[in-house]
């Protein structure tokens, strides 16, 4: 049976193998992803993000159990950082999801960022499609523990849940740009810890300053380990999805996300084309000139771009697009 057929028939092993191929050899995987694309677009994608230790894995575990109780199937992509020195990674999100490992309605994939910044891995977007085609109703992406500017999750998720916890800094942290702007739902986990009320007030005040939004993000309190507030969180996710659909925002988000994906893929493809120039020693020659001050980097890049565009239009790089 062909791999696409296997995956759409729910073959977990085939899906797992394709995810590996996406991570290791994207060009090869692409040929399969092309055929798989028609079977995607049905799943809803929830992104969980927040600082390390805020409880993303535990929240993932708890909401998955409720979703399963509602008869929905769930795919989970759990991302942990790679070592900048060795490229290795310790992927430990499954520790909090042990009970889910034998549930055939749940598929969990742990993933290393492989050096990619932004909170996700390069392979995340393709993996969402694979789990979608595998038939999962809901896909949960758990980002790496983030700091202030890892906001890639907005490219992929329909609903972004930002999980924070008390005791992480003063109120100026909350009005800074970046991560605090991307939450559709705010969760203060470990709500039994001191400082929860203050944090909630500060987030509410920050949200009150955003006047232009049609969706006012709710601020929820949870104690994920004790299952406190999780049901409410799912209700709010449902309410947000409903808002997205009724307001036309879902389509807009998916358009934005497709646009961003195209740019990402183009960037990757050109990076690869460029790297063949490096292999040919072509780039080395230019670098030598720049270092010797015989040429400036700006002119060099202009020239290089025109060479690339030229070879592209001359068919040096395959171009069979007609539209």
């Amino acid at each position, binding site marked *: 049976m062909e791999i696409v057929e296997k995956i759409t028939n729910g073959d*977990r*092993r085939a899906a*797992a*193998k394709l*995810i*590996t191929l*996406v*991570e*290791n*050899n*994207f060009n090869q995987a692409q040929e399969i992803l092309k055929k798989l694309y028609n079977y995607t677009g049905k799943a809803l994608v929830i992104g969980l993000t927040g600082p390390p230790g805020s409880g993303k894995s535990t929240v993932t575990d708890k909401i998955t159990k409720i979703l399963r109780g509602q008869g929905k199937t769930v795919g989970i992509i759990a991302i942990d950082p*790679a*070592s900048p020195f*060795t*490229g*290795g*990674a*310790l*992927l*430990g999100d*499954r*520790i909090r999801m*042990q009970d889910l*490992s*034998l549930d055939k309605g749940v*598929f*969990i*994939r*742990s993933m*290393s960022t*492989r050096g*990619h910044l932004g909170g996700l*891995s*390069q*392979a995340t977007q393709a993996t969402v499609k694979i789990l979608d085609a595998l038939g999962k109703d809901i896909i949960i992406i758990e980002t790496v523990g983030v700091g202030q500017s890892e906001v890639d999750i907005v490219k992929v998720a329909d609903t972004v849940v930002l999980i924070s916890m008390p005791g992480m800094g003063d109120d100026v942290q909350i009005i800074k740009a970046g991560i605090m702007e991307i939450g559709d739902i705010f969760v203060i986990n470990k709500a039994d810890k001191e400082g929860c009320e203050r944090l909630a007030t500060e987030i509410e005040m920050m949200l009150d300053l955003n006047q232009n939004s049609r969706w006012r993000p709710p601020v929820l309190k949870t104690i994920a380990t004790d299952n406190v507030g999780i049901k409410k969180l799912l209700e709010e996710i449902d309410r947000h999805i409903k808002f997205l659909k009724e307001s036309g925002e879902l389509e807009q988000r998916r358009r934005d996300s497709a646009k961003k994906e195209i740019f990402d893929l183009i960037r*990757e493809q050109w990076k690869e084309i460029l790297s063949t120039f490096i292999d040919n020693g072509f780039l080395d020659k230019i670098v030598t000139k720049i270092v010797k001050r015989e040429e400036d980097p700006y002119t060099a890049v202009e020239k290089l771009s025109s060479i690339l565009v030229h070879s592209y239009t001359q068919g040096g790089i395959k171009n069979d697009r007609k539209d």
Partner: protein
Amino acid sequence: MEGKKIRVLIAKPGLDGHDRGAKVVARALRDAGMEVIYTGLRQTPEQIVETAIQEDVDVIGLSILSGAHTHLFPKIMELLKENNIEDIVVIGGGVIPEEDIPELRKVGIAGIFTPGTDTHDIIKFIREKVK
């Protein structure tokens, strides 16, 4: 995003709560550039095999100190076979008496590493087995 990375599942079957050794090995493999999936304590053979499938690992490293290896290791190998997975390298570590090793090899455990093993030996072993 290119390039093959060796993926290893470090799992602790059985009921003992000693995961120091498993964590040391997990850390050493991470430092050797591998992607290590660590699942925590008290995993059943079924959980281990299902996790190995979803994570598409090249290697399963089993750590056990409870003495139940002669029961649990063969059970895991059996489940792998049932699922038509013959290409995953399975290794074991922990308190495993010398006289049990031949039997474990017979069921398909590729390598047994007892206390005192240099982690470099484990890394070397995995790199040679996973091509």
